């Protein structure tokens, strides 16, 4: 009965329906994570030693495999020594939600373990700057080139084979080269984001440009528009909503290059934070950092979508999506 009500609610167009789906999309994985973390018989392949008993190499707080713990239990029982005591636990790389939640908060309030190391928010800000410059530099060249390639067949024939070829080269492969040319600080990192974004960008935007309805171009031509003005007054405004959407997707790709880029030269930004925390086995901090990246990426995309709706009130694709 309740399910029926829920289903009819979901199938009815509503302003909040989207929010319900969004919530559900996040709720399901979180519930799964909670179940695995808090319900011992689902997984919990380890045992956390509370009292080592007679086992000489056990220490309190140590994580051992369940089979190993049972073997030791058996041995101790046979040897007549005190039995070890422990509770079932998950591996250290899977912290429980509440631990990660606490880490999310404390990560910003705890000073870094090394004196001169940056705080988490400083690391994040550094990462955002690297992404920003890589993406802006790529767009400054890639967007105009993409639009021109989509408009002029000759230009696209001339440039696209090379771009296509380059697109298949993994951007991180240029890491060493980038360091040699640009030094060990932010230069090579920005370069990797640039390489990872640029070639896709040219192709994607050229394709978007080609999809512009030819009738619109022809209408403009019969109204006396020609040459350069055809691009500035018809092609660009005509593809703008789609171009904006492309840029949003490309920005997402730029984020995926971030971690690799930041490992190049001296490790920095959020990657540095993550590798440090992993080294000290603070996996809840690692998860917290990953979640923060996700929140920033997803949040900024939502923001850009909102802005897009304001900017392009004539765009029909958005209405179709939210309808």
């Amino acid at each position: 009965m309740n399910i029926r009500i829920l289903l009819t609610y979901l199938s009815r167009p509503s302003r909040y329906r989207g929010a319900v789906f969004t919530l559900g999309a996040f709720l399901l994985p979180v519930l799964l994570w909670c179940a695995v973390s808090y319900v011992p018989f689902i997984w919990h392949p380890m045992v956390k030693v509370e009292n080592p008993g007679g086992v000489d190499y056990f220490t309190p707080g140590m994580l051992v495999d369940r089979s190993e713990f049972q073997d030791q239990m058996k041995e101790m029982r046979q040897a007549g020594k005190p039995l070890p005591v422990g509770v079932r636990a998950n591996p250290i790389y899977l912290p429980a939600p509440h631990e990660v939640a606490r880490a999310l908060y404390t990560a910003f309030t705890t000073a870094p373990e090394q004196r001169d190391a940056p705080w988490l928010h400083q690391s994040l800000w550094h990462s955002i700057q690297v992404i920003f410059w890589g993406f802006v530099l790529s767009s400054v060249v890639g967007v105009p080139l993409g639009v021109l390639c989509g408009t002029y067949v000759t230009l696209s024939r001339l440039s696209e084979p090379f771009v296509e070829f380059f697109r298949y080269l993994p951007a991180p492969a240029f890491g060493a080269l980038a360091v040699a040319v640009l030094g060990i600080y932010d230069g090579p990192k920005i370069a990797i984001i640039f390489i990872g974004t640029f070639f896709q960008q040219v192709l994607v935007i050229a394709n978007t440009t080609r999809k512009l309805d030819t009738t619109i171009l022809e209408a403009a031509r019969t109204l006396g528009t020609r040459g350069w003005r055809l691009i500035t007054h018809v092609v660009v405004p005509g593809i703008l909503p789609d171009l904006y959407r492309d840029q949003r997707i490309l920005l997402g790709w730029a984020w995926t290059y971030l971690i690799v880029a930041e490992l190049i030269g001296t490790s920095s930004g959020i990657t540095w934070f993550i590798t440090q925390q992993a080294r000290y086995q603070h996996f809840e901090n690692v998860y917290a950092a990953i979640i923060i990246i996700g929140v920033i990426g997803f949040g900024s995309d939502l923001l850009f979508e909102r802005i897009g709706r304001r900017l392009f009130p004539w765009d029909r694709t958005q209405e179709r999506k939210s309808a």
Partner: protein
Amino acid sequence: MNEHTPTPTEALPGAGNGLPSYLEQSPAVRERFAQLQQRKVILEVRDLQKRYKSLQGETEALRNINFQVHRREFVCVIGPSGCGKSTLIRILAGLEKHTAGDVLLDGQPVTGPGRDRGMVFQGYSLFPWLTVKRNVMFGPLMNGHSRDSAEREARLWLDMVNLGKFADAYPHQLSGGMRQRVAIARALVNEPRILLMDEPFGALDAQTRAKMQRHLLKIWRNLDITVLFITHDLDEAIYLADRILVLKANPGEVQEVIEVPVPRPRSPEQFSTPEFRATKARLEALIHPPEAQGEEEAEGEDALPEKIIRFTNVGDNVE
């Protein structure tokens, strides 16, 4: 004026039901055509040919097209699907290059699109990112008018098509008929020598369509404008046109140029007059040869050389 021996194809419909010949014109209509012929030729098409090269080989879309359009004349082009109507009008608009022959506008050869030929497309061709008013302002702005004068003209033309109230709406907020009215205003604001329309009302429902036809006739009556109008709706062609250019397919050739004997001013009541029905019967015979004779007959028709010669003669006589 047309020498014409009835063939089996055209003898069937219309002939036996007491209709007059579509060639019969009342004195008033004859007078009107005589006057029309005196007017200046705005558009002249001579021996126009168009071949498309594609992977499947060459297709001859148009062959030996000859006709003239006089100033303030309303000419409809009609023909079966694929006979090259769109190709023809796109060549006239300068959007497509012809492979042989001449297209002369006011005696000057057409080399590309230009503001002297306005075009209204079948599909929606409004700029979706501009409001209705901005759409109409687009042409004047592109042609160097100031923003003020462009806006003034746009308002004028929007009032002309009864869309003054929708000046600030976006195209997607309008109905199909309204959009085409904006497209007409947008084309006319440039003051073209000739307005080219490729099935502009093809996507509209019957009622809107009838309204648009009335509207277009009203605009045409009040303005010094020449119209070349493509349609596949026989009623629409007869209702609107002074002359109807009938094309046939494979390759696209002028089959006949019909002077519509229905007097002006036109009104929907004329749909049932004998002249109207006679013209329609003739068009039907030309465009949809009777079913019973089927495909082979149509192919056999192509093989009759003397008929083709007669068709070209018909075209020549009229011009």
